[in-house]
């Protein structure tokens, strides 16, 4: 399969996803360009070995392509679905390594489990929340970033941005509600099958 770099972007999300499901390999490349970085991030954060992480990223897209008919857009975003596949690949990989190590070095204890901080579920949650943040209206996003990363209070945010206090509060409320909804649908649920792809293993 060869896809050139002069692909005309299909910007409309719905038709892009429909093309992906219909089996258009250009849409696969677009899915890879768009979500490959997030999948790769999950793999590299969860696995110590770079080559293993690349294998997982690759296997995720191959499985997604072969199981594309099982993706149901009404149950979550394509990113959420891909992360669900990648998460299972990561866990399978960790388990198989643990198994191998038990077989080949039964005396040695398996010493380096994935640190909690980098557990795949946690990384998935962060990726999903970051993706939703990126899609917030710009003013809402700016206000939330000031609260999250600059630790500003809402009067301080109002002073910095020049926005009325009430606007800052409603931006924070709306932005947090959106993040929360997305996180509930895809982040926290990634391990419970809400973004599952039973046919795409």
């Amino acid at each position, binding site marked *: 399969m060869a896809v050139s770099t002069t692909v005309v972007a299909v910007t409309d999300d719905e038709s892009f996803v*429909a093309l992906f499901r219909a089996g*258009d390999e250009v849409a696969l490349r677009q899915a890879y360009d768009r979500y490959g970085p997030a999948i790769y*991030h999950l793999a590299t954060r969860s696995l110590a070995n770079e080559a293993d992480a690349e294998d997982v990223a690759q296997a995720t897209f*191959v499985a997604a392509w072969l199981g*594309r008919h099982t993706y149901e857009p009404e149950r979550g975003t394509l990113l959420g679905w891909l992360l669900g596949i990648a998460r299972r690949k990561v866990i399978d990989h960790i388990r198989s390594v643990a198994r191998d190590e038990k077989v080949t070095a039964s005396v040695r204890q398996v010493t380096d489990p994935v640190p909690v901080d980098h557990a795949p579920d946690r990384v998935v949650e962060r990726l999903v929340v970051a993706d939703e943040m990126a899609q917030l209206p710009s003013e809402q996003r700016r206000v939330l970033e000031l609260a999250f990363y600059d630790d500003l209070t809402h009067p301080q945010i109002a002073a910095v941005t020049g926005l009325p206090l009430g606007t800052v509060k409603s931006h924070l409320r709306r932005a*947090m509600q959106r993040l929360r909804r997305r996180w509930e649908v895809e982040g926290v649920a990634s391990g419970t099958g809400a973004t599952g792809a039973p046919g795409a293993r």
Partner: protein
Amino acid sequence: MSHLEQEQLVLLALGEATADDAEAAHVDACAACRAELQALRTVATVGREATDARHLTAPPDRVWDGIAAALASAPAPAVPLRPEPQRRARRPRWLVPALSAAAAAAVAVAGTIIAERVTRDEPTAQPQVLGLASLDRLPAAPECGPTYARTFIDGRLHVHLGCVATPGETFEVWLLDLSTANDPDGLKMFTLGVMGGQTDQIFRLRSDIDLNRFKTVDVSAEPNDGRPAHSGKSLWRGPLPGR
């Protein structure tokens, strides 16, 4: 005390406000508010941790190469590229919508070309895709899913429609030169052929058609009335991909 306002819950979750005694007592007693606050707190924590997830780097090229190699031996795509079932002898059609039949006939006599359709030698391997573009649905078109065109590096055009024509009509594919839309003798266009009752069809883009001019793909509904002109009823239209 009634439930806490959503805005107050958000401020509490962000750690910016502290609950006063009445609020704290309510949250302690109210499962709904407690659950809401807990969820918002978690989201705030995850969001604050998400800094490195906001600036991602693309995987190395070899990851895509591996995907492409793995899929080269994978089953055929769900939208197979079907060759035209049979060659049909058709008169050249070179037409101008919204013109009189006489004017259209004059243009036709002036001698224009029909793009050939691919009838055989469909390669089994996927040729290299040069570009893909959605065709926009025009008001007259039925609502039947995504519609797109893609060009291959070997000069062929694949048109995918979400549906086939109703009996009594034919879907026909054209290349338009929209810069001639206001010419006195009408819009210039080539026909590529008909969809032939299929949702997918492949046409060859003849090398003597100036694709820098004829760069708009148009799908029309044609009544089966023997008139070769564009009916004027365009259903989908979009850029010729890869141009």
